[in-house]
């Protein structure tokens, strides 16, 4: 009985023990916050990867693809139809992207994914990642207007009227410029005209172009109407065609597009024939794509499937098309392993490969896991440090309470009873510290975005910059078991570190400790 009374008395009167409680509390709170944020990040990231990759992907072994996606999809439907919500045939191929920016050509390696927007949209989150569906932003990333499209509008490869207006403007200027320079070349190449150049001629330039437009002999390779978009349309990964810089004047990070919607880009890839031949085609950018995974934003280009198939020679004489993969969205993504098994039995292993999105992104996910494990070890060391604090402070208390321990023993308290006072005291510290830490941690996680705002406001600098982390808010995800184990870990550290002082207290000799004055 005395144990409980003394424990509570000591806990209340030893303010130094508060420091142990505080360090346990802080350690526990930090672990909970960090784990929740990391888990929030990784589940958001998984969500995004899954949105791009679909739950299960059936891929063909060769880049030439397999004929007749309808038949393949029918086979898939036959074996695993019960689990499947939607399917989308795609063609994936490596390519080079080239575009002109400020007079220079820029070339980047990319992956072109040919999609049907209607079926791809059923797969998940494509439209969420297109700029036309996001709030409009200026070059500093500040929101300046609502999304152009509501989320419900189906994705398409049509150019928006505003972007078309820009294109028309650009192309007309370009045509004028070309015609002009052609004129100049002609003028220069005809020696009898050289002396005819005088200030008066400059005013007649426009008339010359107007005259020349209709009957220039070398116009054949260019379409007559440059202003309407090309047949190839692409959503281009936003990081491929923008660059970020710090504005010298304001110090703000600005995003500068190098290719605007309505501009054309050039793509170089290989055809499907044997041997593969290099091929080039131009396509008009109709939208930017940004999912927040720089791996994707920096490499993916979504193209209209029929055009890509045509360019790559994936349509045979009979008009049958080929695809390189079929993306599959499941009704319940937890069934992915089961569906993968079913499909692997159905499709010849040499020609087809079946993966879940997790398998395709294995190394990345594994890296995140390792990172979070290491972080947890480091953070647990904080609690271990708190444990050493308890050890030191308890030794102090044992020394300070030597006389009281002697009194208790002379009144008949057993060694194990004295020991359990200190163990219970450590346990109490652990419970209080861990309890407060869990409370504090959960409150911080709950209010983390508010806290972030306040810190940003105080320091005048955005702590959680959406342009860097790609999340409008700090994502969090509280796992109850994680919270439980962190608390249990902290409590057991507190108990463990009170064992040594408790043993020492229990071994004190009653008379020797009574003489201690």
């Amino acid at each position: 009985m005395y144990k409980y009374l003394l424990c509570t008395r000591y806990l209340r009167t030893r303010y130094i023990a508060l420091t142990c409680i505080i360090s346990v509390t802080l350690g526990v709170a930090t672990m909970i916050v960090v784990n929740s944020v990391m888990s929030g990040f990784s589940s958001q990231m998984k969500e995004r990867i899954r949105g791009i990759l679909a739950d299960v992907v059936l891929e063909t072994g060769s880049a030439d693809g397999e004929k007749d996606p309808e038949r393949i999809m029918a086979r898939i439907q036959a074996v695993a139809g019960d689990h499947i919500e939607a399917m989308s045939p795609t063609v994936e191929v490596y390519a080079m992207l080239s575009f002109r920016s400020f007079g220079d050509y820029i070339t980047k390696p990319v992956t072109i994914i040919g999609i049907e927007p209607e079926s791809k949209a059923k797969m998940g989150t494509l439209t969420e990642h297109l700029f036309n569906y996001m709030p409009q932003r200026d070059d500093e990333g500040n929101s300046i207007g609502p999304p152009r499209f509501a989320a419900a509008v189906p994705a398409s490869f049509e150019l928006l009227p505003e972007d078309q207006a820009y294109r028309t403007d650009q192309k007309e200027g370009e045509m004028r410029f070309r015609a002009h320079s052609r004129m100049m070349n002609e003028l220069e190449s005809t020696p009898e005209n050289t002396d005819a150049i005088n200030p008066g001629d400059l005013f007649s330039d426009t008339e010359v172009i107007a005259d020349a437009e209709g009957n220039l002999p070398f116009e054949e390779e260019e379409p007559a109407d440059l202003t309407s978009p090309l047949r190839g349309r692409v959503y281009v990964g936003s990081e491929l065609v923008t660059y970020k810089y710090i504005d010298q004047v304001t110090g703000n990070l600005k995003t500068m597009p190098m290719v605007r919607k309505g501009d054309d880009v050039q793509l170089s890839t290989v055809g499907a024939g044997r041997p593969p031949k290099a091929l080039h085609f131009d396509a008009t950018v109709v939208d930017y794509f940004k999912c927040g995974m720089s791996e994707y934003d920096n490499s993916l280009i979504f193209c209209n499937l029929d055009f890509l198939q045509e360019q790559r020679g994936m349509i045979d004489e009979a008009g049958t098309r080929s695809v390189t993969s079929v993306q599959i969205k499941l009704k319940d993504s937890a069934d992915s392993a089961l569906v993968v098994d079913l499909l692997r039995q159905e499709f010849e292993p040499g020609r087809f490969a079946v993966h879940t999105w997790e398998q395709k992104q294995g190394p990345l996910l594994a890296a995140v896991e390792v990172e979070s494990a290491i972080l947890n070890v480091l953070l647990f060391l904080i609690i271990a440090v708190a444990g050493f604090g308890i050890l030191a402070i308890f030794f102090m208390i044992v020394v300070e309470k030597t006389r009281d321990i002697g009194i208790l023993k002379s009144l008949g308290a057993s060694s194990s009873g004295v020991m359990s006072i200190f163990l219970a005291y450590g346990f109490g510290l652990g419970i209080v510290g861990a309890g407060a830490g869990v409370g504090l941690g959960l409150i911080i996680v709950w209010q983390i975005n508010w806290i972030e705002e306040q810190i940003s406001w105080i320091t005048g600098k955005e702590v959680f910059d959406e342009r860097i982390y790609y999340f409008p808010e700090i994502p969090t995800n509280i796992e109850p078991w994680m919270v439980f184990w962190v608390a249990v870990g902290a409590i057991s550290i507190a108990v463990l570190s009170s064992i040594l002082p408790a043993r020492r207290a229990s071994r004190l000799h009653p008379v020797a400790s009574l003489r201690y004055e």
Partner: protein
Amino acid sequence: METAEIIKMPQRHIAAIAVEKAYRKGDHKIPVLHGVNIDVDRGEFVSIVGQSGSGKSTLLHLLGLLDAPSVGEIHLDGQRIDDLSAKSRDELRNRVFGFIFQFYHLLPELSVMENVLAPLMIRYTLLGYVRRKRELQNHARDLLERVGLSHRLTHRPSELSGGEMQRAAIARALIGKPEVLLADEPTGNLDASTGGEIMDLLRTLNEQENLTIVMVTHDNAIAEQAGRTVRLREGRLEKLADAA
């Protein structure tokens, strides 16, 4: 160790047999007691006198099992008790002996009431204590009233005078209804009249409840109030007087 039968004939209650005690200080051995023999009968009131440093407190600690003799034996009701297991000795300290220390030794975190109840808190489990809480608290209150501390129940020891602390310590020694009261200078810090009250209380307990008392003092006037006085000199006992 319940000895219920009451016998008219003097019956040996607690005894030290050829007890020696030496403290070790590095390589030096500091002998304090050299073969002390003392018999105390049930219901007897013995006082031990002696110079400061003669080993009175040491002898009392040995009798109360707070320390183990280097040589010799301690007997209770004719049975050797100094070699019992730690658990049995804890039990004896709690139930059979009541100890009044020279320097009170109250627990500073607890109130007077809680200090007095401490031996019972040690004796009972949490459940057992809570069940008879009222009864035990009434007992403690009665005892504190007897020692004249009923107005100080909730005070901390640091808020008491030396005499008040001594009385609280006496109440604590008596709360467990001990058979043997070992008192180390119970009046050492009190004025003559308060000391007299305490001695009256001890004598009453001795006479009415047949409590065996061994008391250490260096005040001859106090010592004379006991039934028998022995003197410790150079680690040996000399018989002085057999009064009453």
